[in-house]
C-alpha cells in the first residue's frame, strides 16, 4: 500500500520534471513560485511596452526625417530668394532684368507654397498641425491664410517620455517676426525724398517700451521723433548716413528725405514668409522711374531681406529642434533596447529552466523509481506461504 503511494509520488515528480524539460520553463503554474510568476508578469508587460515604444520611435523618426527633408527644401528656396533679392538690389539692374528676377521669385514662391502644403505617405498635410486633412496654406490675391491649427502631436517613445513628431505650419511659416525681430523701421508710403532705412538694432532693452514712433523731417536737415500720442520725444539734425537713436533703439538712414517725409518705427509683428516673398517680388517687379521710386524700392527690398533673414532663422531653429528630437529618438531607441535586454535576462532567470539541474534531477528520479519498483516486486514475493 505504502510502497505503491511512494511510487505514485515519484511518478508525479517525474512527470513534473519531464514537463519542465519539454517546455523549458521552470514555473509551470503560478503556484510553483507565486512571487516569481507575478514578477515575470510585470517583466513581460514592461518588455512589451518597451517594444511598443520602439515601434513608436521608428514612426517618430521617419516623420521627423520627412519634416527635415521638407524643411531643407524650404531652406533652399529661401536661400535662392535671398540671392535673387540681393541681385535685384544691385543698382546696375535694369527694369527688364529685375522683371525677370521677379518672375523667378514668384516661381519660387509657388514652390514654397507647395512645400508648405506637402502631404505625407498617408495623405496627411505635414504642416497643418492637427488638422491633417486640411490644406494648411491658401492664397487669395496677395493674402496668405493658414488653415491648420497650432497643435503639435506628441508620441510616447519611452516611459514618461513624449516627443513631438511635427511642427505646425503656423510656427514654421506664419509666426515670423518682421523687421529685426524687435522692431521694424519703414518709410511712409507717401514719402517723396530718397531716404533709405538701413540696419537697426536694440541698444538698451530697458529703455525700449515697444511703443510706436514716427520720425518726421521738419526740414531736410532736421527731424523730430514723435510717440504714438503725437508728443515729441526728441529732435535732432540729420546728415545722410546718420544713425538715429532714441528710446533704446537705433537705425541708420541714408539719402535725402524731403520735408514732411516720415519713417515709422513699430514693434515687430508676425509676417508670413509667403507675404514677405510676394511683396519682395512685387517691389522688384515694379519699374522705377525716379530717385524717389528707386529709394522706395530699395527700402522695400531691404525690409524684405530683413524679413527673409528672420524666416531663414526660424527655419534654422526648427531644423535644429527637429535634429535634436531625432537624436533624442535615437538615444531612446538605444536605451529602450538595452532595457529590454536587461529585462529579458531577468525574465529568463526567473522563468527559464536550468537544464543541467533539471536533467540531473530527472536522472535521480528515474533511478529512485526503478529502485522502488524492483524492491516492491521483491518484497511482495516474500511470504511464508511460499514454503507450504
Amino acid at each position: 500500500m505504502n510502497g505503491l503511494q511512494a511510487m505514485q509520488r515519484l511518478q508525479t515528480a517525474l512527470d513534473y520534471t519531464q514537463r519542465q524539460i519539454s517546455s523549458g520553463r521552470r514555473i509551470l503554474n503560478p503556484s510553483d513560485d507565486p512571487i516569481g510568476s507575478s514578477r515575470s508578469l510585470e517583466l513581460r508587460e514592461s518588455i512589451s511596452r518597451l517594444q511598443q515604444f520602439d515601434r513608436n520611435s521608428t514612426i517618430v523618426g521617419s516623420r521627423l526625417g520627412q519634416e527635415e527633408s521638407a524643411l531643407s527644401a524650404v531652406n533652399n528656396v529661401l536661400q535662392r530668394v535671398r540671392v535673387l533679392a540681393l541681385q535685384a538690389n544691385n543698382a546696375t539692374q535694369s527694369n527688364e532684368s529685375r522683371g525677370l528676377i521677379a518672375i523667378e521669385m514668384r516661381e519660387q514662391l509657388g514652390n514654397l507654397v507647395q512645400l508648405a502644403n506637402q502631404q505625407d505617405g498617408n495623405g496627411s498635410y505635414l504642416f497643418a498641425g492637427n488638422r491633417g486633412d486640411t490644406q494648411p496654406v491658401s492664397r487669395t490675391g496677395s493674402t496668405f491664410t493658414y488653415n491648420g491649427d497650432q497643435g503639435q502631436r506628441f508620441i510616447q517613445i519611452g516611459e514618461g517620455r513624449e516627443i513631438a513628431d511635427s511642427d505646425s505650419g503656423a510656427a514654421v511659416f506664419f509666426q515670423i517676426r518682421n523687421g529685426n525681430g524687435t522692431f521694424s523701421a519703414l518709410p511712409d508710403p507717401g514719402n517723396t525724398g530718397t531716404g533709405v532705412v538701413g540696419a537697426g538694432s536694440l541698444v538698451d532693452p530697458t529703455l525700449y517700451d515697444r511703443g510706436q514712433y514716427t520720425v518726421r523731417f521738419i526740414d531736410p536737415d532736421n527731424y523730430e521723433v514723435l510717440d504714438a500720442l503725437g508728443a515729441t520725444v526728441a529732435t535732432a539734425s540729420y546728415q545722410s548716413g546718420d544713425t538715429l537713436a532714441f528710446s533704446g533703439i537705433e537705425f541708420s538712414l541714408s539719402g535725402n528725405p524731403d520735408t514732411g517725409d516720415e519713417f515709422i518705427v513699430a514693434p515687430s509683428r508676425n509676417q508670413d514668409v509667403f507675404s514677405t516673398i510676394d511683396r519682395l517680388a512685387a517691389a522688384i517687379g515694379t519699374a522705377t522711374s525716379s530717385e524717389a521710386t528707386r529709394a522706395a524700392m530699395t527700402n522695400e527690398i531691404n525690409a524684405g531681406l530683413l524679413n527673409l533673414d528672420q524666416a531663414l532663422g526660424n527655419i534654422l531653429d526648427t531644423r535644429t529642434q527637429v535634429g535634436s528630437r531625432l537624436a533624442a529618438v535615437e538615444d531612446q531607441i538605444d536605451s529602450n533596447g538595452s532595457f529590454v535586454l536587461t529585462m529579458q535576462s531577468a525574465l529568463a532567470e526567473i522563468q527559464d529552466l536550468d537544464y543541467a539541474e533539471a536533467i540531473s534531477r530527472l536522472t535521480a528520479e528515474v533511478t529512485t523509481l526503478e529502485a522502488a519498483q524492483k524492491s516492491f516486486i521483491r518484497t511482495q514475493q516474500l511470504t511464508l506461504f511460499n514454503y507450504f
Partner: protein
Amino acid sequence: MPDLLNTSLTGMLAFQRALEITGHNISNANTPGYSRQVAEFTTRVGGGSGRNYVGGGTQISTIKRIYDNLLVEQLRTSATGQARFSALNNLAGRVDSLLADADTGLNTGLQNFFNTMQDVSNNPAEIPTRQALLGEADGLANRFRSLDQRLDTLESEVNDRLTLAVDEINRIAADIAETNDQIAIAGVGALPNDLLDRRDALVLELSGLVSVSTIMQDDGAMNVFVGSGQSLVLGANVQRFGTQASEFDPTRVSVVYEGSSGTTPLDTSLSGGTLGGLLEFRSRVLDPSRQSLGQTAVAFVNRFNAQHAAGMDLRGNLGGDFFAIDPPRVLYSSNNTGSGTVTAAIDDLGAFTGADYVLEFDGAAYSLSRADTGQNVALTGSGTAADPFLADGISIEVGGAAAAGDRMMIRGGHNAAGTIETVITDPRAIALAAPTRAQASIANIGDATISPARVADSTDPALLASSVIEFTSATSYTINGAGNFTYTDGDPIVINGSSVTINGTPAVGDQFTIEANYGASGDNSNGLLLTDIQSVGVLDGGAIGIGESYAQLVASVGGTAHQIQAGLDAQNVIYTNAEDAVLSKSGVNLDEEAANLIRFQQAYQAAAQVVNVTKTLFDSLLAATSR
C-alpha cells in the same frame, strides 16, 4: 478416563475455532477496514480429586479484535484533512492556471489593447488602425467575459459536487444508524467484531466528506456529530443534511442541516473533508477571485470611459461610452417581507473594493456590512436619489417599503467581468483628439505663448463654446470682452471646462482663442491620455493600476494555491502515517497467520492424539478385565 477425553475434546474444539479465526483473517487480508481477530484461550477449571485439582482443558474466552481507538481517531482526522486539501488543491490549481495562462489570462489582452492604443495614437487619422483597436477592444472584453465564465463554471461544479457530497453523507449516515441498530441487537453478549469494523469503515468514509466527532454509547451504538455539534446519527436515528438555494443567490447551493427544529444553514460552520474543502474553495479562492477580477474590470471600464468622454471623435462629437459594464448587482434575501428596492452604482474607483456587502434594514435605519467578514461599513448620506448612501466607493439608493429585518446583498465586482462589452462599433467614434484647442492669434505682438488646452471638466455644457482671451495690458485680460482678470505668468486659466496656461509677456490687444477642436483628425492628445491608463493608478486611492490589480490577483491566487499544495503534501504524509499505524496494529500479517495455521493445526493433531491415548488406555483396561 472420561475426563481426559473431555479435556482433549475441548482442545480440539478450541483449536478448530482458532483455525477458523485464522482462516477468517486470511480471507479478509485485503478487506479495507478489517481488524485482525485473535482467539484468546483460557483454561477450563476442572474438578477436584482429593487433595489436587486437575485442569479441565481449554476454551476460547473471547475473539479479540486487535484495535486501537486512538489510532483510528487519528486516521479519521487525517482523512478529513486530506480530503479537504485534495478538493481545495484540485479546484484552486485550476483557477491558478486559468488566470496566469498567456492564452486565457488578462495580461496579454490588456497588453495588446494598450499597444494598439499606442498605434492609434501614432496614426489618429487612419481608419484601419482605429478598426484594429476596436478588434482588440472586443478581444479584451471577451477575455474578461471568458475568465468570468470559466470561474462561473467552477462555481456550478462546486454546486454539483456539494449536492453529491450531501447525498453521500446522508447515505453513509443511514448505513451507520442501521449498523448501530444491528450492533445493539447482536451485542447483548459478545461484541460483533465484523459489524464494528464495518461501522468504523463507514465513519472513516464519512470523515473524508466532512469533519465528524463520535461518542460511544453503553449499548455499543456510536453517535456522530458534525459542524458545530449538530447530531447526524443518534443510535439508530438519522438527521439529514440538505441543500437549498442560498439566501441571496438562487444559483448558489447552500448546505443546510434539516434538524427537528427546522433547517439551519451550515455553510460557515462546516469544515474539513470534501464538503469543507468545497465550501472553503468557494469562500477563500473563488469568491475573492471573481470579486477581484470584477474590481479590475469595473476600474478599467469606468476609467477608460471617463477619459474617452473627455475627448473628441473624428466627427467632432465628444466621446461616448467605449465599453459597457453592469453596475453593482443587488440581490434580495429570500426571507425579505418588505418591498424595498435598492440600486447601486460606482461612485469612487479609488475606494471601490469589489467585495460583497449586506445591506440590512432594522425598521428605522439601514446598515451595511461586509458579507465575507461581517465587518460593519460606515454609510454616509441618506439613501435618496439626491443624496445616496456612500460606502467603499459605491453609491446606494433605496426605495420602496422595506420591512424590518430585510436584507439585500450588493455585489461590487462579483459578476462584473462577465458583463463587459464594447459599445463602440464605428472607428470614427473613437475620441482621440482633445475637445478644445487653444490658439494664439497670428497678429499677436507680445511674446506670450499659450499651452494646448486641457480638459478640466468634460461635463461642462459650454465646453465646445469659443472664447477669446484679450489682453488689455501686460497684466490684465478680458474673456469674450467682459471682465477684467489679472494675468499671472504661468497660472492656469479655466474657461468653460478647458484649462490653459499662458506664459511670457503679452502686449495690449494680443488675443488667444479657445475653441472646439473640430477637424483635428491628426490630434492624439486624448489618445495619449487613454494610453496612460495602462500605467496610472486607479484603485486603492490611485495607488494600484489596472494591470497591477490583475497581477495582484494572480499572485494572491498563486500564493493560496501554493499554500494549499504544501498543505496537501503534508496531509498526504500524515494520512499515510496514520494509515500505516492502523495497519500495523490491526492489519492482517499473512506470515503470522501462516505460523498460526501451523501452530493450531499441530495443537489440534496433538489433542486428537490425546483422544487416541484415551482410547488405548480404555482398551488396555478392557483387556485387563475381560478375562
